[in-house]
Protein backbone atom coordinates (compact mmCIF):
# COMPACT_ATOMS: atom_id res chain seq x y z
CA UNK A 1 0.00 0.00 0.00
CA UNK A 2 1.47 3.40 -0.97
CA UNK A 3 1.60 6.28 1.53
CA UNK A 4 -1.14 8.10 -0.40
CA UNK A 5 -3.43 5.08 -0.35
CA UNK A 6 -2.76 4.60 3.32
CA UNK A 7 -3.68 8.21 4.07
CA UNK A 8 -6.90 7.78 2.16
CA UNK A 9 -7.73 4.69 4.22
CA UNK A 10 -6.91 6.46 7.45
CA UNK A 11 -9.14 9.37 6.48
CA UNK A 12 -11.95 6.99 5.61
CA UNK A 13 -11.54 5.16 8.90
CA UNK A 14 -11.53 8.43 10.83
CA UNK A 15 -14.72 9.67 9.19
CA UNK A 16 -16.35 6.32 9.95
CA UNK A 17 -15.33 6.58 13.61
CA UNK A 18 -16.79 10.09 13.84
CA UNK A 19 -20.08 9.01 12.33
CA UNK A 20 -20.19 6.00 14.63
CA UNK A 21 -19.61 8.18 17.69
CA UNK A 22 -22.27 10.65 16.66
CA UNK A 23 -24.97 8.01 17.06
CA UNK A 24 -27.21 7.88 20.11
CA UNK A 25 -25.12 7.18 23.18
CA UNK A 26 -25.88 4.21 25.39
CA UNK A 27 -27.27 1.98 22.66
CA UNK A 28 -25.77 -0.85 20.63
CA UNK A 29 -25.73 1.32 17.52
CA UNK A 30 -22.71 3.37 18.45
CA UNK A 31 -19.20 2.22 19.17
CA UNK A 32 -18.72 4.97 21.76
CA UNK A 33 -19.64 2.94 24.79
CA UNK A 34 -20.15 -0.75 25.32
CA UNK A 35 -23.83 -1.41 26.01
CA UNK A 36 -22.99 -4.41 28.12
CA UNK A 37 -20.01 -5.51 30.15
CA UNK A 38 -20.57 -9.10 29.02
CA UNK A 39 -18.49 -8.77 25.87
CA UNK A 40 -15.82 -11.37 26.69
CA UNK A 41 -17.76 -14.56 26.28
CA UNK A 42 -15.88 -17.79 26.92
CA UNK A 43 -17.76 -19.40 24.02
CA UNK A 44 -18.94 -17.01 21.34
CA UNK A 45 -22.37 -16.54 19.91
CA UNK A 46 -23.52 -14.93 16.69
CA UNK A 47 -25.16 -11.51 16.56
CA UNK A 48 -28.69 -11.48 17.97
CA UNK A 49 -29.78 -10.16 14.57
CA UNK A 50 -28.73 -13.42 12.88
CA UNK A 51 -31.52 -16.01 12.91
CA UNK A 52 -30.50 -18.60 10.29
CA UNK A 53 -31.63 -22.06 11.36
CA UNK A 54 -31.86 -25.62 10.16
CA UNK A 55 -35.17 -26.98 8.92
CA UNK A 56 -35.61 -29.77 11.48
CA UNK A 57 -38.11 -32.60 11.32
CA UNK A 58 -38.57 -35.22 13.96
CA UNK A 59 -40.85 -38.20 13.66
CA UNK A 60 -43.76 -37.78 16.00
CA UNK A 61 -43.63 -40.97 18.02
CA UNK A 62 -40.12 -42.37 17.87
CA UNK A 63 -38.25 -39.59 19.63
CA UNK A 64 -34.79 -39.22 18.14
CA UNK A 65 -35.65 -40.31 14.61
CA UNK A 66 -35.55 -37.52 12.11
CA UNK A 67 -33.45 -35.14 10.09
CA UNK A 68 -32.53 -31.51 9.83
CA UNK A 69 -31.32 -29.68 6.76
CA UNK A 70 -28.56 -27.15 6.21
CA UNK A 71 -29.96 -23.76 5.05
CA UNK A 72 -27.60 -23.61 2.05
CA UNK A 73 -29.42 -20.59 0.60
CA UNK A 74 -28.58 -18.52 3.68
CA UNK A 75 -24.88 -19.39 4.00
CA UNK A 76 -21.67 -17.98 2.52
CA UNK A 77 -18.48 -19.63 1.30
CA UNK A 78 -18.06 -23.37 1.57
CA UNK A 79 -17.76 -24.23 5.29
CA UNK A 80 -20.95 -25.26 7.02
CA UNK A 81 -21.01 -23.88 10.57
CA UNK A 82 -21.03 -26.89 12.88
CA UNK A 83 -24.30 -25.72 14.45
CA UNK A 84 -25.93 -25.85 10.99
CA UNK A 85 -24.56 -29.20 9.75
CA UNK A 86 -27.39 -31.40 8.50
CA UNK A 87 -28.42 -34.25 10.78
CA UNK A 88 -29.93 -37.66 10.26
CA UNK A 89 -30.39 -39.90 13.25
CA UNK A 90 -31.97 -43.34 13.37
CA UNK A 91 -32.21 -43.65 17.15
CA UNK A 92 -31.37 -40.36 18.80
CA UNK A 93 -28.09 -38.73 19.78
CA UNK A 94 -26.22 -40.61 22.49
CA UNK A 95 -24.46 -38.73 25.26
CA UNK A 96 -20.97 -40.24 25.35
CA UNK A 97 -18.27 -39.56 27.90
CA UNK A 98 -15.09 -39.46 25.79
CA UNK A 99 -13.05 -40.87 28.68
CA UNK A 100 -15.23 -43.99 28.61
CA UNK A 101 -15.30 -44.35 24.82
CA UNK A 102 -13.00 -46.49 22.73
CA UNK A 103 -12.66 -48.00 19.27
CA UNK A 104 -12.23 -51.77 18.96
CA UNK A 105 -10.82 -53.33 15.77
CA UNK A 106 -11.36 -57.09 15.60
CA UNK A 107 -12.29 -59.98 13.31
CA UNK A 108 -9.95 -61.06 10.52
CA UNK A 109 -6.91 -59.32 12.00
CA UNK A 110 -3.71 -60.67 13.49
CA UNK A 111 -4.17 -58.56 16.62
CA UNK A 112 -7.49 -57.25 17.94
CA UNK A 113 -6.91 -53.75 19.32
CA UNK A 114 -8.70 -51.19 21.44
CA UNK A 115 -7.87 -47.48 21.07
CA UNK A 116 -8.93 -44.93 23.64
CA UNK A 117 -9.59 -41.40 22.42
CA UNK A 118 -6.41 -40.18 24.09
CA UNK A 119 -4.41 -42.91 22.34
CA UNK A 120 -5.91 -42.00 18.97
CA UNK A 121 -5.08 -38.35 19.45
CA UNK A 122 -1.41 -39.21 20.07
CA UNK A 123 -1.16 -40.69 16.58
CA UNK A 124 -0.37 -38.55 13.53
CA UNK A 125 -3.55 -36.81 12.37
CA UNK A 126 -4.66 -34.88 9.31
CA UNK A 127 -7.23 -32.12 8.74
CA UNK A 128 -9.13 -32.17 5.48
CA UNK A 129 -12.11 -30.39 3.96
CA UNK A 130 -14.82 -32.76 2.80
CA UNK A 131 -18.53 -32.68 2.17
CA UNK A 132 -20.92 -35.18 3.68
CA UNK A 133 -24.11 -35.73 1.72
CA UNK A 134 -26.99 -38.02 2.60
CA UNK A 135 -27.79 -40.20 -0.40
CA UNK A 136 -31.44 -39.31 0.20
CA UNK A 137 -30.61 -35.69 -0.69
CA UNK A 138 -32.84 -34.64 -3.58
CA UNK A 139 -35.14 -37.63 -3.12
CA UNK A 140 -38.10 -35.25 -3.24
CA UNK A 141 -36.85 -33.80 -6.54
CA UNK A 142 -36.72 -37.31 -8.01
CA UNK A 143 -40.21 -38.03 -6.71
CA UNK A 144 -41.48 -34.89 -8.43
CA UNK A 145 -42.09 -32.69 -5.40
CA UNK A 146 -39.40 -30.06 -5.97
CA UNK A 147 -38.00 -28.33 -2.90
CA UNK A 148 -39.23 -24.76 -2.44
CA UNK A 149 -35.80 -23.57 -1.32
CA UNK A 150 -32.21 -24.86 -1.43
CA UNK A 151 -32.52 -26.24 2.10
CA UNK A 152 -35.45 -28.43 1.17
CA UNK A 153 -33.98 -29.42 -2.21
CA UNK A 154 -30.30 -29.95 -1.28
CA UNK A 155 -29.95 -29.34 2.49
CA UNK A 156 -28.75 -32.85 3.29
CA UNK A 157 -25.31 -31.65 2.23
CA UNK A 158 -22.75 -29.98 4.49
CA UNK A 159 -19.04 -29.26 4.18
CA UNK A 160 -16.57 -29.20 7.07
CA UNK A 161 -12.95 -29.44 7.99
CA UNK A 162 -12.52 -32.84 9.63
CA UNK A 163 -9.54 -33.81 11.77
CA UNK A 164 -8.62 -37.37 12.55
CA UNK A 165 -6.32 -40.34 12.16
CA UNK A 166 -6.05 -42.13 8.84
CA UNK A 167 -7.80 -45.46 9.29
CA UNK A 168 -5.04 -47.09 7.23
CA UNK A 169 -2.62 -46.55 10.13
CA UNK A 170 -4.90 -48.33 12.61
CA UNK A 171 -5.71 -51.19 10.25
CA UNK A 172 -2.04 -51.79 9.54
CA UNK A 173 -1.39 -51.94 13.29
CA UNK A 174 -4.11 -54.59 13.67
CA UNK A 175 -2.89 -56.42 10.53
CA UNK A 176 -5.70 -57.65 8.28
CA UNK A 177 -5.46 -61.39 7.58
CA UNK A 178 -5.51 -62.92 4.10
CA UNK A 179 -9.08 -62.89 2.80
CA UNK A 180 -10.07 -59.72 4.71
CA UNK A 181 -12.09 -57.66 2.23
CA UNK A 182 -14.75 -55.82 4.24
CA UNK A 183 -15.08 -53.81 7.40
CA UNK A 184 -18.33 -53.61 9.35
CA UNK A 185 -18.38 -50.22 11.10
CA UNK A 186 -20.75 -49.88 14.06
CA UNK A 187 -21.86 -46.87 16.10
CA UNK A 188 -22.64 -46.66 19.81
CA UNK A 189 -26.08 -45.13 19.24
CA UNK A 190 -29.17 -46.91 20.59
CA UNK A 191 -29.74 -48.87 17.34
CA UNK A 192 -26.02 -49.75 16.95
CA UNK A 193 -26.19 -48.51 13.38
CA UNK A 194 -23.78 -50.42 11.18
CA UNK A 195 -22.53 -50.45 7.58
CA UNK A 196 -20.27 -52.81 5.64
CA UNK A 197 -17.45 -50.94 3.92
CA UNK A 198 -15.00 -52.36 1.37
CA UNK A 199 -11.53 -52.57 2.93
CA UNK A 200 -10.11 -50.83 -0.16
CA UNK A 201 -11.89 -47.61 0.87
CA UNK A 202 -10.85 -48.04 4.51
CA UNK A 203 -7.21 -48.30 3.39
CA UNK A 204 -7.54 -45.44 0.91
CA UNK A 205 -8.77 -42.11 2.31
CA UNK A 206 -10.96 -43.04 5.31
CA UNK A 207 -10.49 -41.05 8.50
CA UNK A 208 -11.33 -41.77 12.12
CA UNK A 209 -12.38 -38.20 12.88
CA UNK A 210 -12.57 -36.47 16.24
CA UNK A 211 -12.44 -32.84 15.06
CA UNK A 212 -14.91 -30.72 13.11
CA UNK A 213 -14.17 -27.14 12.07
CA UNK A 214 -11.45 -26.70 14.65
CA UNK A 215 -13.18 -28.15 17.70
CA UNK A 216 -14.47 -31.53 18.83
CA UNK A 217 -17.20 -33.19 16.76
CA UNK A 218 -20.69 -32.01 17.61
CA UNK A 219 -22.76 -34.69 19.42
CA UNK A 220 -25.05 -34.88 16.38
CA UNK A 221 -22.01 -35.55 14.19
CA UNK A 222 -20.78 -38.50 16.20
CA UNK A 223 -19.01 -37.14 19.27
CA UNK A 224 -16.46 -38.24 20.24
CA UNK A 225 -15.53 -40.32 17.17
CA UNK A 226 -16.87 -40.91 13.70
CA UNK A 227 -15.89 -42.66 10.53
CA UNK A 228 -15.41 -40.34 7.58
CA UNK A 229 -15.53 -41.79 4.08
CA UNK A 230 -14.83 -38.86 1.74
CA UNK A 231 -17.20 -38.63 -1.22
CA UNK A 232 -19.39 -41.54 -0.12
CA UNK A 233 -23.02 -41.43 1.00
CA UNK A 234 -23.28 -39.96 4.49
CA UNK A 235 -24.98 -42.99 6.01
CA UNK A 236 -21.77 -44.99 5.60
CA UNK A 237 -19.71 -42.50 7.65
CA UNK A 238 -20.81 -44.13 10.92
CA UNK A 239 -21.14 -41.74 13.85
CA UNK A 240 -20.30 -42.52 17.50
CA UNK A 241 -17.96 -45.16 16.06
CA UNK A 242 -16.96 -47.84 18.56
CA UNK A 243 -16.34 -51.04 16.61
CA UNK A 244 -14.72 -52.09 13.33
CA UNK A 245 -15.26 -55.74 12.45
CA UNK A 246 -12.88 -56.90 9.71
CA UNK A 247 -14.40 -59.67 7.61
CA UNK A 248 -14.31 -61.58 4.33
CA UNK A 249 -17.90 -60.71 3.42
CA UNK A 250 -20.31 -57.82 3.99
CA UNK A 251 -22.84 -58.34 6.81
CA UNK A 252 -25.76 -57.44 4.50
CA UNK A 253 -27.29 -55.50 7.39
CA UNK A 254 -30.58 -53.64 7.45
CA UNK A 255 -29.03 -50.29 6.48
CA UNK A 256 -27.34 -51.65 3.34
CA UNK A 257 -30.14 -53.91 2.07
CA UNK A 258 -33.56 -52.65 3.23
CA UNK A 259 -32.37 -49.05 2.87
CA UNK A 260 -29.75 -47.23 0.79
CA UNK A 261 -30.24 -49.55 -2.19
CA UNK A 262 -31.48 -48.15 -5.51
CA UNK A 263 -34.47 -50.01 -6.94
CA UNK A 264 -34.66 -50.13 -10.75
CA UNK A 265 -37.80 -50.67 -12.86
CA UNK A 266 -36.63 -54.25 -13.52
CA UNK A 267 -37.23 -55.05 -9.84
CA UNK A 268 -33.49 -55.45 -9.25
CA UNK A 269 -31.78 -53.00 -6.93
CA UNK A 270 -28.22 -51.66 -6.98
CA UNK A 271 -26.43 -52.37 -3.73
CA UNK A 272 -23.31 -50.71 -2.23
CA UNK A 273 -23.84 -47.57 -4.31
CA UNK A 274 -21.48 -45.52 -2.19
CA UNK A 275 -20.17 -42.71 -4.39
CA UNK A 276 -22.05 -39.42 -4.49
CA UNK A 277 -21.96 -38.22 -8.09
CA UNK A 278 -21.30 -34.66 -9.28
CA UNK A 279 -24.00 -32.25 -8.16
CA UNK A 280 -24.64 -28.52 -7.76
CA UNK A 281 -27.25 -26.01 -6.67
CA UNK A 282 -27.60 -22.26 -7.08
CA UNK A 283 -28.02 -20.83 -3.58
CA UNK A 284 -28.49 -17.18 -4.58
CA UNK A 285 -30.82 -16.24 -6.13
CA UNK A 286 -32.82 -19.32 -5.17
CA UNK A 287 -36.23 -20.38 -3.94
CA UNK A 288 -37.87 -18.12 -1.30
CA UNK A 289 -35.58 -15.17 -2.18
CA UNK A 290 -36.53 -12.03 -4.09
CA UNK A 291 -34.57 -9.79 -6.46
CA UNK A 292 -35.04 -6.07 -5.77
CA UNK A 293 -35.64 -5.29 -9.46
CA UNK A 294 -33.96 -5.49 -12.86
CA UNK A 295 -30.20 -5.01 -12.78
CA UNK A 296 -26.87 -6.71 -12.15
CA UNK A 297 -26.64 -9.64 -9.74
CA UNK A 298 -24.25 -12.41 -8.83
CA UNK A 299 -25.46 -15.95 -9.25
CA UNK A 300 -23.66 -18.16 -6.73
CA UNK A 301 -23.93 -21.68 -5.46
CA UNK A 302 -22.17 -24.87 -4.46
CA UNK A 303 -20.86 -27.75 -6.55
CA UNK A 304 -19.31 -31.04 -5.41
CA UNK A 305 -18.39 -34.52 -6.55
CA UNK A 306 -17.71 -37.72 -4.64
CA UNK A 307 -15.31 -38.80 -7.39
CA UNK A 308 -12.82 -35.96 -7.00
CA UNK A 309 -12.47 -32.29 -7.82
CA UNK A 310 -15.00 -30.08 -9.50
CA UNK A 311 -13.50 -29.29 -12.92
CA UNK A 312 -16.08 -26.82 -14.15
CA UNK A 313 -19.49 -25.41 -13.27
CA UNK A 314 -21.81 -24.07 -15.92
CA UNK A 315 -24.76 -21.75 -15.47
CA UNK A 316 -27.78 -21.48 -17.73
CA UNK A 317 -30.05 -18.43 -17.96
CA UNK A 318 -32.52 -20.08 -20.33
CA UNK A 319 -33.67 -23.14 -18.45
CA UNK A 320 -30.84 -25.37 -19.67
CA UNK A 321 -30.77 -24.56 -23.40
CA UNK A 322 -27.35 -22.92 -23.31
CA UNK A 323 -24.58 -22.97 -20.71
CA UNK A 324 -21.78 -20.58 -19.72
CA UNK A 325 -18.80 -21.26 -17.48
CA UNK A 326 -18.94 -19.89 -13.93
CA UNK A 327 -15.83 -18.93 -11.97
CA UNK A 328 -14.75 -21.14 -9.08
CA UNK A 329 -13.48 -19.86 -5.72
CA UNK A 330 -10.04 -21.28 -4.83
CA UNK A 331 -9.02 -23.69 -3.49
CA UNK A 332 -10.90 -26.37 -5.42
CA UNK A 333 -10.47 -29.54 -3.34
CA UNK A 334 -11.32 -33.16 -4.04
CA UNK A 335 -14.59 -34.41 -2.51
CA UNK A 336 -15.22 -30.97 -1.05
CA UNK A 337 -17.83 -28.30 -1.75
CA UNK A 338 -16.72 -25.67 -4.26
CA UNK A 339 -18.26 -22.20 -4.47
CA UNK A 340 -19.09 -20.96 -7.98
CA UNK A 341 -20.02 -17.45 -9.10
CA UNK A 342 -21.44 -15.92 -12.22
CA UNK A 343 -22.37 -12.27 -12.87
CA UNK A 344 -25.61 -11.66 -14.77
CA UNK A 345 -27.95 -8.86 -15.61
CA UNK A 346 -31.62 -9.53 -15.01
CA UNK A 347 -33.85 -7.81 -17.53
CA UNK A 348 -36.98 -8.17 -15.46
CA UNK A 349 -38.45 -10.88 -17.67
CA UNK A 350 -39.24 -14.32 -16.21
CA UNK A 351 -36.00 -16.29 -16.29
CA UNK A 352 -35.16 -19.91 -15.46
CA UNK A 353 -31.66 -20.27 -14.05
CA UNK A 354 -29.80 -23.55 -13.51
CA UNK A 355 -26.33 -24.92 -12.75
CA UNK A 356 -24.51 -28.10 -13.66
CA UNK A 357 -21.28 -29.56 -12.35
CA UNK A 358 -18.64 -31.34 -14.42
CA UNK A 359 -16.08 -33.18 -12.30
CA UNK A 360 -12.48 -34.12 -13.02
CA UNK A 361 -13.54 -37.52 -14.39
CA UNK A 362 -15.46 -35.70 -17.13
CA UNK A 363 -18.84 -36.72 -15.71
CA UNK A 364 -21.55 -34.15 -16.44
CA UNK A 365 -24.36 -33.64 -13.92
CA UNK A 366 -27.49 -34.94 -15.67
CA UNK A 367 -31.04 -33.66 -16.00
CA UNK A 368 -33.78 -35.33 -13.92
CA UNK A 369 -35.14 -37.03 -17.06
CA UNK A 370 -31.79 -38.72 -17.72
CA UNK A 371 -31.74 -40.17 -14.19
CA UNK A 372 -35.28 -41.50 -14.50
CA UNK A 373 -34.42 -42.99 -17.92
CA UNK A 374 -31.41 -44.74 -16.39
CA UNK A 375 -32.91 -46.10 -13.15
CA UNK A 376 -36.60 -45.26 -12.98
CA UNK A 377 -38.67 -43.13 -10.61
CA UNK A 378 -38.41 -45.44 -7.56
CA UNK A 379 -34.64 -45.50 -7.10
CA UNK A 380 -35.00 -43.09 -4.11
CA UNK A 381 -31.30 -42.51 -3.46
CA UNK A 382 -28.35 -40.77 -5.16
CA UNK A 383 -30.40 -38.22 -7.09
CA UNK A 384 -28.16 -35.52 -8.58
CA UNK A 385 -30.34 -33.91 -11.24
CA UNK A 386 -29.90 -30.33 -12.47
CA UNK A 387 -31.84 -27.92 -10.22
CA UNK A 388 -33.67 -25.04 -11.90
CA UNK A 389 -35.05 -21.90 -10.28
CA UNK A 390 -37.56 -19.51 -11.85
CA UNK A 391 -37.14 -15.76 -11.35
CA UNK A 392 -40.64 -14.36 -11.79
CA UNK A 393 -41.49 -10.94 -13.13
CA UNK A 394 -41.85 -9.52 -9.61
CA UNK A 395 -38.34 -10.77 -8.75
CA UNK A 396 -39.48 -13.60 -6.50
CA UNK A 397 -37.70 -16.91 -7.00
CA UNK A 398 -39.52 -20.24 -6.93
CA UNK A 399 -38.83 -23.87 -7.74
CA UNK A 400 -39.73 -25.07 -11.23
Amino acid at each position, binding site marked *: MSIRERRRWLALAASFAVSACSRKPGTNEGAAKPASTLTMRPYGERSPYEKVQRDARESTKSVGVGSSRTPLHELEGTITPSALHFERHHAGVPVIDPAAHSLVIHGLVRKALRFSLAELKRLPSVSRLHFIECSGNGGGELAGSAGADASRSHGLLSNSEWTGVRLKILLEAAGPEAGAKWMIAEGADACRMARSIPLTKALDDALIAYGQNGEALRPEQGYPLRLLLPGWEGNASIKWLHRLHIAAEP*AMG*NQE*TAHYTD*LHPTGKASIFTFEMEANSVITRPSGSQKLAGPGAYEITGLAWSGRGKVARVEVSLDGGESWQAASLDEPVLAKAATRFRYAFKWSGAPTVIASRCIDETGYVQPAREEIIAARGPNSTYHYNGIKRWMIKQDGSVTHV
Partner: protein
Amino acid sequence: MFSTLMLAAMLAQSGKPVSAEEIRAIDLTVFPNGSGLPRGKGTAVRGAALYKEKCAECHNEKGEGREQQYPRLVGGIGSLATAEPVKTVGSYWPHATTVFDYIRRAMPYETPRSLSADEVYSITAVLLYWNGIIGENDELNEKTLPRVKMPNREGFVPDSRPHQKTKR
Protein backbone atom coordinates in the same frame (compact mmCIF):
# COMPACT_ATOMS: atom_id res chain seq x y z
CA MET B 1 6.29 -36.27 8.09
CA PHE B 2 6.55 -39.30 10.33
CA SER B 3 9.10 -41.95 9.61
CA THR B 4 7.90 -45.54 9.54
CA LEU B 5 9.94 -46.25 12.65
CA MET B 6 8.44 -43.33 14.52
CA LEU B 7 4.93 -44.41 13.53
CA ALA B 8 5.60 -47.99 14.65
CA ALA B 9 6.82 -46.64 17.99
CA MET B 10 3.71 -44.51 18.36
CA LEU B 11 1.42 -47.42 17.52
CA ALA B 12 3.26 -49.67 19.97
CA GLN B 13 2.33 -47.33 22.81
CA SER B 14 -1.31 -46.97 21.75
CA GLY B 15 -3.86 -49.66 20.97
CA LYS B 16 -4.31 -52.27 23.68
CA PRO B 17 -4.94 -55.94 22.95
CA VAL B 18 -8.57 -57.05 23.33
CA SER B 19 -9.52 -60.49 24.65
CA ALA B 20 -11.89 -62.85 22.83
CA GLU B 21 -14.24 -62.58 25.80
CA GLU B 22 -14.41 -58.78 25.54
CA ILE B 23 -15.16 -59.06 21.83
CA ARG B 24 -17.92 -61.63 22.38
CA ALA B 25 -19.60 -59.20 24.76
CA ILE B 26 -19.89 -56.43 22.16
CA ASP B 27 -19.99 -58.29 18.82
CA LEU B 28 -23.48 -58.03 17.30
CA THR B 29 -22.68 -58.75 13.64
CA VAL B 30 -24.54 -61.63 12.00
CA PHE B 31 -23.37 -62.62 8.52
CA PRO B 32 -25.50 -64.25 5.79
CA ASN B 33 -23.66 -67.57 6.34
CA GLY B 34 -24.87 -67.57 9.96
CA SER B 35 -21.56 -66.58 11.50
CA GLY B 36 -22.28 -64.52 14.61
CA LEU B 37 -25.65 -66.14 15.38
CA PRO B 38 -26.04 -67.11 19.03
CA ARG B 39 -27.37 -70.47 20.17
CA GLY B 40 -31.12 -70.45 20.58
CA LYS B 41 -34.41 -71.37 18.96
CA GLY B 42 -37.88 -70.11 18.24
CA THR B 43 -41.04 -70.66 16.22
CA ALA B 44 -43.77 -68.46 14.78
CA VAL B 45 -46.23 -69.77 17.38
CA ARG B 46 -44.15 -68.32 20.21
CA GLY B 47 -43.20 -65.30 18.07
CA ALA B 48 -46.83 -64.26 17.50
CA ALA B 49 -47.37 -63.72 21.24
CA LEU B 50 -44.07 -61.86 21.61
CA TYR B 51 -44.79 -59.73 18.55
CA LYS B 52 -48.11 -58.63 20.02
CA GLU B 53 -46.39 -57.58 23.21
CA LYS B 54 -43.18 -56.05 21.82
CA CYS B 55 -43.77 -54.93 18.22
CA ALA B 56 -47.46 -54.40 17.41
CA GLU B 57 -47.69 -50.95 18.94
CA CYS B 58 -45.64 -49.54 16.06
CA HIS B 59 -45.67 -52.13 13.27
CA ASN B 60 -49.40 -52.89 13.60
CA GLU B 61 -51.17 -56.19 14.28
CA LYS B 62 -49.57 -58.35 11.60
CA GLY B 63 -46.69 -56.25 10.27
CA GLU B 64 -48.88 -53.94 8.17
CA GLY B 65 -46.91 -50.93 9.43
CA ARG B 66 -48.37 -47.63 10.58
CA GLU B 67 -48.15 -44.23 8.92
CA GLN B 68 -44.91 -43.66 7.05
CA GLN B 69 -42.57 -43.92 9.99
CA TYR B 70 -43.32 -47.49 11.11
CA PRO B 71 -42.27 -49.67 8.21
CA ARG B 72 -44.46 -52.38 6.80
CA LEU B 73 -42.88 -55.79 7.43
CA VAL B 74 -45.18 -58.14 5.58
CA GLY B 75 -46.37 -58.51 1.98
CA GLY B 76 -45.39 -56.87 -1.30
CA ILE B 77 -43.80 -60.03 -2.68
CA GLY B 78 -43.76 -59.75 -6.48
CA SER B 79 -44.33 -55.97 -6.44
CA LEU B 80 -40.75 -54.77 -6.95
CA ALA B 81 -40.90 -54.55 -10.76
CA THR B 82 -44.25 -52.73 -10.73
CA ALA B 83 -44.97 -48.99 -10.71
CA GLU B 84 -45.70 -49.17 -6.98
CA PRO B 85 -43.09 -51.39 -5.36
CA VAL B 86 -43.71 -52.38 -1.74
CA LYS B 87 -40.46 -53.03 0.10
CA THR B 88 -40.88 -55.25 3.17
CA VAL B 89 -38.91 -57.91 5.02
CA GLY B 90 -40.66 -60.48 2.85
CA SER B 91 -40.48 -58.78 -0.52
CA TYR B 92 -37.13 -57.00 -0.38
CA TRP B 93 -34.70 -58.25 2.27
CA PRO B 94 -32.26 -60.73 0.64
CA HIS B 95 -31.16 -62.61 3.79
CA ALA B 96 -33.10 -63.98 6.78
CA THR B 97 -30.02 -63.42 8.96
CA THR B 98 -30.55 -59.66 8.53
CA VAL B 99 -33.93 -59.92 10.27
CA PHE B 100 -32.30 -61.51 13.31
CA ASP B 101 -29.37 -59.06 13.25
CA TYR B 102 -31.58 -56.00 13.05
CA ILE B 103 -34.11 -57.03 15.69
CA ARG B 104 -31.33 -58.00 18.08
CA ARG B 105 -29.33 -54.76 17.68
CA ALA B 106 -32.08 -52.17 17.29
CA MET B 107 -35.50 -53.37 18.43
CA PRO B 108 -37.78 -52.72 20.27
CA TYR B 109 -37.05 -49.06 19.56
CA GLU B 110 -37.36 -47.95 23.19
CA THR B 111 -35.48 -50.93 24.68
CA PRO B 112 -32.99 -52.27 22.13
CA ARG B 113 -30.98 -55.39 23.05
CA SER B 114 -33.49 -56.34 25.74
CA LEU B 115 -34.69 -59.50 23.96
CA SER B 116 -33.17 -62.94 24.59
CA ALA B 117 -31.78 -64.98 21.68
CA ASP B 118 -34.85 -67.28 21.81
CA GLU B 119 -37.15 -64.25 21.65
CA VAL B 120 -35.32 -62.83 18.63
CA TYR B 121 -35.49 -66.22 16.83
CA SER B 122 -39.21 -66.38 17.62
CA ILE B 123 -40.05 -62.88 16.35
CA THR B 124 -37.93 -63.50 13.24
CA ALA B 125 -39.93 -66.72 12.73
CA VAL B 126 -43.33 -65.05 12.92
CA LEU B 127 -42.31 -62.36 10.42
CA LEU B 128 -41.08 -65.01 7.98
CA TYR B 129 -44.24 -67.07 8.60
CA TRP B 130 -46.59 -64.12 7.91
CA ASN B 131 -44.65 -63.54 4.68
CA GLY B 132 -45.28 -67.16 3.66
CA ILE B 133 -41.57 -68.03 3.75
CA ILE B 134 -41.57 -70.67 6.55
CA GLY B 135 -44.22 -72.78 8.31
CA GLU B 136 -45.88 -71.91 11.60
CA ASN B 137 -44.07 -74.67 13.49
CA ASP B 138 -40.71 -74.52 11.68
CA GLU B 139 -37.93 -74.06 14.23
CA LEU B 140 -35.44 -71.29 13.59
CA ASN B 141 -32.05 -71.67 15.24
CA GLU B 142 -28.42 -70.85 14.45
CA LYS B 143 -28.32 -73.73 11.94
CA THR B 144 -31.71 -73.36 10.18
CA LEU B 145 -31.95 -69.55 9.93
CA PRO B 146 -29.10 -69.08 7.40
CA ARG B 147 -30.68 -71.80 5.21
CA VAL B 148 -33.95 -69.91 4.79
CA LYS B 149 -34.19 -68.73 1.18
CA MET B 150 -35.69 -65.25 0.97
CA PRO B 151 -37.86 -64.40 -2.11
CA ASN B 152 -35.58 -61.51 -3.13
CA ARG B 153 -32.31 -63.40 -2.55
CA GLU B 154 -31.15 -62.71 -6.13
CA GLY B 155 -32.60 -59.20 -6.27
CA PHE B 156 -29.43 -57.14 -5.82
CA VAL B 157 -26.85 -56.11 -8.39
CA PRO B 158 -23.57 -54.19 -8.03
CA ASP B 159 -23.35 -50.43 -8.56
CA SER B 160 -23.48 -49.84 -12.32
CA ARG B 161 -22.99 -46.07 -12.26
CA PRO B 162 -22.10 -43.78 -13.89
CA HIS B 163 -25.32 -44.17 -15.87
CA GLN B 164 -24.72 -40.99 -17.84
CA LYS B 165 -21.96 -40.87 -20.39
CA THR B 166 -19.18 -38.40 -19.81
CA LYS B 167 -19.28 -35.79 -22.51
CA ARG B 168 -15.83 -34.33 -22.48
